[in-house]
């Protein structure tokens, strides 16, 4: 039993930390998200060179086939610098979907470019006003020549503006499926905007857009989709932990250095005690994220655990903490913490956005509270009844 990184994982964290840190001096998130790409291309290229775009892709398709702990280490380091590169949204999540559902041919076609870092894929699942966990309203229709077209609206689709390909969830009659759509396909209307954390997102409208089902006809993709999303929901918590740690760090530095009434803010015990409470919350959230990550690893090793339920539990706990840490950090910084130029403001905005990602915190809590497990006595060890 342990919740620690092994030596390789430690090295991975340090490598990403160093590489990303170079590209993200203080305030760089604002700059990165305002480029045409929406992220720092140099950092992206470095990540690709380090093989991180292939982290979740197996060796046969140009990746290294690493597990959830490596994903955690990578994303915590990214979060530490509030890095904007869409490793999770644009590479990891689509790679999990393709691996779970795609045919061998599709995997060969889609994964190597992802692994190389040559492209990103956008997953289009959210729809305005529709609960995340319900069946999509985007519908697949078969035309006379056997080809498939999609119609309907997805929003928000993260980083759709830079993606070469979209993976679009849609229903074919009663069967839910994931469809491969070329970003440049006919019948797509994209309205680009931004998320509250300044990363890019779009509304994408499909009107008879040509598409190909990911995987074999007739199989319902709901379970695979849920599993891949649950994996992403756990993974994003690693980013949140990295963000919270540096948010706390910035706040502590600010309390030490900023003077009010002629003395450093750290002289004011009320503020100091709140920083201590932030620390305690961040450490508990880190433990929760690590625990969820270790659980996903155990599932990959064959453990019989309900992955979406674990993801909900961890997401709710860490999401609540992320919100509280963001709020306290801004409050303790005062006005400066509200400004676009302040690093801590971008951390806070990203933490806020994470809590609303993948359907959002309220929906996750609703599911978790309704689940049978809500009243089950907790045990962090899987085989310790």
């Amino acid at each position, binding site marked *: 039993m342990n919740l620690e990184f092994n030596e390789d994982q430690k090295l991975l964290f340090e490598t990403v930390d160093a590489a990303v840190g170079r590209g993200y001096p203080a305030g760089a998130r604002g700059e990165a998200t305002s480029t045409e790409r929406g992220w720092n291309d140099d950092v992206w290229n470095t990540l690709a060179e380090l093989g991180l775009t292939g982290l979740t892709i197996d060796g046969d398709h140009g990746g290294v086939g690493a597990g959830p702990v490596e994903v955690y280490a990578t994303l915590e380091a990214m979060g530490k610098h509030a890095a904007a590169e869409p490793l999770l949204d644009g590479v990891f999540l689509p790679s999990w979907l393709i691996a779970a559902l795609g045919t061998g041919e599709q995997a060969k076609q889609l994964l190597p470019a992802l692994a190389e870092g040559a492209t990103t894929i956008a997953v289009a699942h959210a729809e305005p006003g529709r609960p995340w966990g319900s069946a999509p309203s985007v519908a697949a229709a078969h035309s006379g020549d056997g080809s498939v077209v999609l119609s309907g609206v997805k929003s928000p689709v993260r980083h759709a503006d830079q993606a070469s390909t979209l993976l679009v969830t849609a229903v074919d009659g009663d069967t839910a499926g994931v469809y491969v759509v070329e970003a440049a396909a006919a019948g797509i209307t994209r309205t680009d905007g931004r998320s509250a954390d300044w990363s890019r997102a779009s*509304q994408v409208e499909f009107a008879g857009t040509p598409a190909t089902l990911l995987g074999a006809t007739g199989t319902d993709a709901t379970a695979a989709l849920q599993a891949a999303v649950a994996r992403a929901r756990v993974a994003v918590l690693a980013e949140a932990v990295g963000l919270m740690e540096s948010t706390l760090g910035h706040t502590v530095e600010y309390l030490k250095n900023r003077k009010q*009434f002629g003395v450093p803010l750290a002289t004011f015990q009320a503020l100091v005690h709140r920083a201590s409470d932030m620390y305690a919350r961040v450490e508990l959230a880190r433990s929760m994220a690590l625990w969820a990550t270790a659980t996903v690893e155990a599932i990959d090793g064959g453990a019989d655990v309900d992955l979406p339920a674990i993801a909900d539990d961890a997401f709710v706990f860490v999401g609540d903490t992320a919100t509280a840490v963001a709020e306290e950090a*801004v409050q303790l910084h*005062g006005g400066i913490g*509200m400004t676009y*130029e302040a690093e801590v403001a971008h951390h*806070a905005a990203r933490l806020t956005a994470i809590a*609303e990602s993948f359907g959002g915190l309220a929906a996750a809590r*609703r599911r978790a509270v309704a689940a049978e497990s809500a009243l089950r006595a907790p045990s962090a060890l899987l085989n310790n009844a």
Partner: protein
Amino acid sequence: MDLELSPEDIEFRDGVREVFTREIPEDIRRRNALSRTTRDDIVASQRILNSHGLAVPHWPVDWGGKRWTPTQSHIYASELQRNSVPQPLAFNVSMVGPIIAEFGSEEQKRQFLPATANLDIWWSQGFSEPEAGSDLASLRTTARREGDVYVLNGQKTWTTLGQYGDWMFVLARTDPDAPRKQQGLSFLLLDMTTPGIERRPITLIDGSEEVNEFFFDNVRVPVENLVGEENKGWSYAKFLLGNERNGIAQVGTSRRVFADLAEAAAGIPTENGTLADDPQFRTSMHGARTTLLALEATQLRVTGASENGQASPVSSLLKMEGTKALQELSKLRMRAAGDDGMLLPPDGDAAESLHSDEAATIAAAQYLNQRKLSIFGGSNEIQRGVIAKTILGL
């Protein structure tokens, strides 16, 4: 005790409500409800109010004020907020106006008060500085007397809507050798077209551009633009603090946000019903509802209390708890929107093109923006200090 409005108060309410809902154009009020109010909206709205005698009711009667009862003042503030009427510009009607009316010369009153009431002059506030946010007494901007002008040098920040400012009221240090740092400050009126003023806009994290920094480089202010006595500026500034008790808890605004959210919830589907059926949402809303009742009751209790120009510790309570309640509602709004709050249009006008629920679209940005409520205008930490000192004697 009596929880009913008297027939006279109902008549009063219906009267102001008539102006607010029939005279103030609906599109102005809609934009205001979505925090998309423009400069022109604020100006248009205030001029309509002024033409009905409703822009500066708390001013002296000679300058457009009314002798309303505390209940009427409460109704006025509450109805403004409930009906999403842009508040008359606080810098004009709650700050510089009352100061000039109280401490200004007759000439200053004639020159400024009518134009201030009608928003023909847009005022900005020049108090905060980078090294003096909560600690106003530490101001560093200097105003050196040279003949019949003061020469202004320094920097002001957090100047809300300063981009529209025609004039600014500035607190500046006229006596650098004063024994206490609260002394030696003066209250000056500054025409923003004077040479030597530079503005730098500050973008907030939600993308809004509502605050600014101003830099003064040998800006010359005629001595006749000194309000009251030289070196007495601190006492004039303090006169403002706690002066505004009505509406400070923003219960009317919170009530409107609550009502809009309750209505929206019935149309937000969940996995098995709508958000309006969701017990957790209902629990949070019930908590918000009872807090707002307690806040409004507190407001009613103190509405009648006499005002003596001192900072009121009850204002601290209302400001702190009222803004907390509004922040909590904005968080609930964001949670209700979920993903839908995570796609902001590239600019405001495109909002409706994205999807139908505009309030959802801006929910997260709104939530981030409203973090300011517990920071600006005296942070919650400052309010706790005021309560401890003035009420608890700690």
